[in-house]
């Protein structure tokens, strides 16, 4: 993993720049295995920065959450850049937003972290359920090493990694201004094993599966708000006239909501899995996104969030496209 000293030095330099407003990284959380986003406005703030396999969040979301209150008379717009620490999957979200012109490249600075895999909080919390003190994790070979209450635990990485990390093809950020350490070559391959199993099920069975999942949805929209690519000015679910999706929380409306969100991410989702991590009801949302990602790969040979110069999938066409209905 990343040399924290180098991370702090680079972040410090960045915050000190006149053209940078703040830098977003990670710091220790308040208990157990928690890590929390950290906003550094001053060089001193960056002393709190850490990077460990517990840094789950996709911080790219904060670009889109930046609030721009109306300017007072005579007040000038703050055009300084925002810096952010990104992992491989997070960087793809940034590229996707750039493609869509949701962000301007000159308004952001990216500190890239070549990532060797992140720990799934659900898995680690199940192993050590009553962990109050914050825990440090180190990576040694194929193990994660925890020091918990004076005892050292060596746990194979495979046991704790997020499923997405086990198939990650782009561990090194595809975009960055400062890359910390050496790039890591992606050696894994996304096999879509779970998706293929689900695809084989009969329609009725699939419907039963998703009904059971969507029934639990409480429409807190943690999935949407944790997603860096859900940045519509007004989300369809909030619209009142016309009201496309009713406020009633029931299977029908929940299904509409979850499917619309998945569709709106078609060709855009970078697979960071933040929606599923944020979901308090354990709805396997990445399964929806991965299915669409797989279809798009097969149909259009397209992978979201790789090249900021490319046009978004649903905003381009190729003259040599064999589909006659398009041209």
């Amino acid at each position, binding site marked *: 993993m990343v040399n924290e000293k180098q991370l702090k030095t680079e972040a410090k330099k960045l915050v000190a720049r006149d053209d940078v407003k703040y830098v977003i990284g990670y710091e220790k959380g308040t208990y157990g295995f928690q890590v929390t986003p950290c906003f550094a406005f001053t060089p001193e703030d960056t002393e709190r920065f850490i990077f460990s396999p517990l840094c789950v969040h996709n911080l790219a979301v904060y670009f889109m*959450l930046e*609030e721009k209150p109306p300017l007072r008379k005579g007040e000038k717009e703050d055009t300084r850049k925002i810096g952010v620490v990104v992992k491989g999957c997070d960087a793809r979200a940034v590229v996707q937003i750039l493609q869509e012109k949701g962000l301007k490249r000159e308004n952001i600075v990216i500190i890239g972290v070549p990532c060797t895999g992140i720990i799934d909080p659900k898995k680690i919390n199940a192993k050590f359920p*009553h962990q109050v003190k914050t825990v440090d994790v180190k990576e040694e070979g194929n193990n994660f090493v925890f020091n918990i209450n004076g005892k050292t635990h060596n746990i194979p990485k495979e046991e704790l990694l997020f499923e997405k990390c086990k198939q990650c093809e782009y561990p090194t950020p595809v975009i960055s201004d400062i890359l910390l350490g050496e790039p890591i070559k992606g050696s894994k391959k996304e096999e879509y094993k779970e998706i293929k199993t689900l695809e084989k099920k009969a329609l009725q069975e699939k419907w039963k599966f998703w009904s059971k999942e969507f029934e*639990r949805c*409480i429409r807190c929209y943690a999935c949407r*708000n944790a997603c860096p690519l859900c940045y519509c000015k007004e989300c369809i679910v909030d619209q009142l006239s016309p009201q496309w999706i*009713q406020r009633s929380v029931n299977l029908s409306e929940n299904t509409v909501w979850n499917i619309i969100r998945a569709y709106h991410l078609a060709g855009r989702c970078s697979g960071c899995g933040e929606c599923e991590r*944020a979901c*308090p009801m354990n709805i396997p949302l990445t399964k929806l996104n991965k299915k669409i990602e797989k279809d798009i790969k097969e149909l259009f040979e397209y992978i979201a969030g790789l090249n900021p110069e490319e046009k978004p999938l649903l905003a381009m066409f190729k003259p040599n496209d064999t589909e006659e209905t398009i041209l």
Partner: protein
Amino acid sequence: MKVNNMEKFVLPKEKLSEWINKIISTYQVFAPVKEEELIFFKQIKNPSEIDLEFVNSAVPPKVLLFQQTETLFKFTNGKNIQITPTTSHNEKTLIFGIRPCDAKSFSILDHVFKGDYKDPYYLTKRKNMLLVGISCNQPAVNCFCTSFDDSPTSSKHVDVLLTDIGDKYYVEVQNEKGKQLVESTKKLFTPATEKDSNKKKDVEKKAFDTITRHMNIKNVDTLVKKLDIIFDAPYWKNIAMKCLGCGACTYLCPTCHCFDIQDETTLTKGARIRIWDSCMRPEYTLHASGHNPRPGRMNRVRNRIYHKYNYYPKNHQVIACVGCGRCIDNCPVNIDIIDVITKTAEVKP
């Protein structure tokens, strides 16, 4: 109607199913049921559906009193409008296995729904509902009910409280309602001995010791006053910077009670419904003029905290937080209410 000298019994564990079966014949029973590794309070038909291996349910049991979606009445459109009120909930219900903290949340919610405007939907359900609680022998990492001078084994807000003391349950009858329930199935219970009472005390002490996270509230008034003077502190902005603005904390809070009312219609018919709302959403305070008095995440995050720790104690003399830890467990970015409140002590006005 408190029973003087609260009555105490024991119920052998093997008799629990028999007791619940008896209860099911009279009441609609809601109990903790496991689904996808999460616990929900659901109506059960058979004691075998119950899962007592849990700390907190995913969704707080407030959902049984104050439903996420509640139809207030139905109507037809057109010239001859007909309005059909929803049938009132006159069924006798019983929540089995409610935790002392969640039961306390009902007492807190009562202030709102029993206040200046009596809410018939809530109150009818509340009146017909019996609470059979189960002590929290093993509180989880983010449990902090003891910070409010409560106990994970408190019977204060339930009608009957069971405490697992090994091979049997220690049964405390809190009031007349609880007494009637136990009376009707008295054969199953035997009076508790001093040894049983001591065992319950041991369980309580152990549970207390398991709670290691504490919110630093020495005195409610002091906290209320402190919050009064730090309303404009940059502290709130710093916390809100990382807030994503989702509603997980409020929806999963046992004391959050904000709702919205809407008419949902098709061409010919419709219903007026009430749904949970969340102060974390910009739309919550959006005026028709387009003005929003809580325009930023800072305003909204601060409101959530102040509603619980400042406005509510001012209005109802009780903090609107029971220390269940759900908002901490479920915040995707680790906004931790224990930390937020504890650190207010150091915040300068």
